[in-house]
């Protein structure tokens, strides 16, 4: 016991860690707890628990439609951003010297431009080219934002690829296209998969770009935002809890898969 107090820097470090964990989980736990509350307003103590709010939410047409719409946009974003991202990563990987750094910096730019700025500029852009706000515009905005993440993840993996794998494939009779599809792409697999999960999460979570580029049909973040504006209720907690659970499951599953493929 005494020895523990002598190690006060270690103790401080541990305490701060647990304080941080508390700070991280307390609001989330409150949110989840309230979603089971047996009353239509948020207050403490919780009193009786119920799953009525859940039943209500999953019968809510607007909510289900928003989910569907979000998933659709996320899927399209992911498909497009992955193809473009892998393409750009391969291009950057084949460049040498200064050109490589410049291309990389340009490819990463959309990830560091503030969301608001990028949203406004895209809005101005689609107005200029007479593209209506709505699905296409949203996907366009999300893709621009997601591509850099795919590029970085794929490029990292590409750089760890032994150079002579490609040589070996060429040597055994593969032209560059066959080499790409049969050797390079499978090698990049885990990184591409990781990048896709990232795209899904980025897109389904995006609010600012969707807000500026969207039409009348709301995505999930927009729906929740609209509901919050007309007053907090446990229903919102339910939606948020569902999003939290799905996101956590997808994230953990992705982590599990990449870890397994890394071991192999």
């Amino acid at each position, binding site marked *: 016991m005494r020895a523990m107090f002598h190690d006060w820097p270690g103790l401080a470090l541990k305490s701060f860690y647990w304080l941080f964990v508390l700070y991280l989980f307390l609001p989330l736990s409150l949110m989840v707890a309230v979603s089971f509350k047996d009353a239509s307003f948020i207050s403490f103590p919780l009193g009786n628990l119920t799953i009525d709010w859940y039943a209500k939410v999953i019968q809510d047409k607007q909510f289900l439609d928003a989910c569907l719409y979000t998933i659709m946009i996320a899927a399209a974003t992911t498909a497009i951003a992955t193809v473009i991202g892998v393409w750009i990563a391969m291009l950057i990987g084949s460049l040498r010297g200064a050109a490589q750094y410049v291309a990389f910096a340009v490819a990463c730019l959309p990830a560091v431009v503030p969301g608001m700025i990028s949203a406004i500029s895209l809005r101005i852009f689609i107005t200029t080219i007479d593209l209506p706000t709505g699905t296409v515009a949203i996907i366009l905005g999300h893709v621009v934002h997601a591509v850099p993440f795919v590029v970085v993840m794929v490029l990292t993996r590409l750089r760890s690829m*032994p150079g*002579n*794998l490609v*040589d*070996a*494939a*060429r*040597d*055994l*009779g*593969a*032209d560059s296209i*066959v080499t790409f599809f*049969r*050797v390079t792409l*499978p*090698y990049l*697999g885990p990184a591409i998969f990781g990048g896709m999960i990232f795209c899904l999460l980025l897109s389904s979570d995006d609010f600012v770009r969707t807000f500026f580029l969207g039409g009348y049909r709301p995505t999930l973040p927009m729906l929740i935002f609209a509901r919050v504006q007309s007053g907090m209720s446990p229903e919102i907690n339910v939606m948020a809890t569902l999003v939290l659970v799905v996101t956590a499951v997808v994230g953990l599953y992705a982590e599990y898969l990449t870890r397994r493929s890394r071991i*192999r």
Partner: protein
Amino acid sequence: MQPVVQFENIRKSFGSFVAVDNLNLNIERGKFVTLLGPSGCGKSTTLRMLGGFETPTEGRILLSGRDVTMVPPNRRNVNIVFQDYALFPHMSVAKNIAFGLELKGVDNRQIQRRVSELLELVQLQDFAGRLPSELSGGQRQRVALMRALAPDPDVLLLDEPLSALDAKLRQTMQIELKAIQEQTGKTFMFVTHDQEEALTMSDTIVVMNNGRIEQMGDPATLYKRPGSAFVATFLGETNLLHSDVVGTDAGEAAVRWNGMTIRASAGALSPKAGDAIYVVLRPEAIQCSAQEPGVANRVKGRIRQRVFKGNHTSLKVEIGEGHLLNALVHPSEVEGLSRDDIWVGWSSEATTLIPARNAA
């Protein structure tokens, strides 16, 4: 018979640096040919030019009589075994070996037959379904070898394929590689900087230095009759005695070294009195004894260092003032010899002469 590979006046430069120069080399079908030389002498570059991964700056490369100088790697009938194997990590052993066959359009039944045949050749039948990461170093080595052999190349190129293995396994693999080469009758072109590897496996050794061929020949000839000081010192251990010719008679030369006169067979050389010359004296050609030996060359010396190595003893013997000769003798030969007073001797045929101007 037409050589399977012909390098004609090949030169390769990277910018102003000349990596390979004036390379002329014919390789006969079915031979085990080794490119041997120190690091950076251009061995890999030569091999990569044949594989199609580098384009010669000048000259032509013919493969089975066809000019392939500008043909891309996927359209020449040669295969490489890479130093770190370069097995496809996401494919099973069988898939790796089948890769080249599939691209050649061989039908499935035949591919399966060939793959199991090759796996059997290296006793890896039970490993067909494994991934490369689930194999030992030696097993990966064998799979890489079989993958390269599978499409039946005109020449198999091996770039230091054994250097990643530990010493014991390396020796086993040397023997195995040679056996596989003999069994399949394939032409092997092997690159190494390890002279022992070259001596063990090769039909022909091509010694390279500074991007040029220094000498080529079968291992025994190269070892016994090195044409330059570089070859003499690079291939095996040697005593290189810098001497002056004092006279010749009947195919023998008398040379002066360290105050003593050495009689040495002149071989193909015709040295003249006054020429500077190297005498190549292999350590195992030296005999040591307490009594004066009955050979052409003998001198008294002192043992400066004696290292027991099991089946032989390695000695450093000082002759005169500060001249050391390395000798390898049978342990029983030096038992009970006094350290400070022994005779060393060698016959006149045991040495080779090299003109000193060749000493690079």
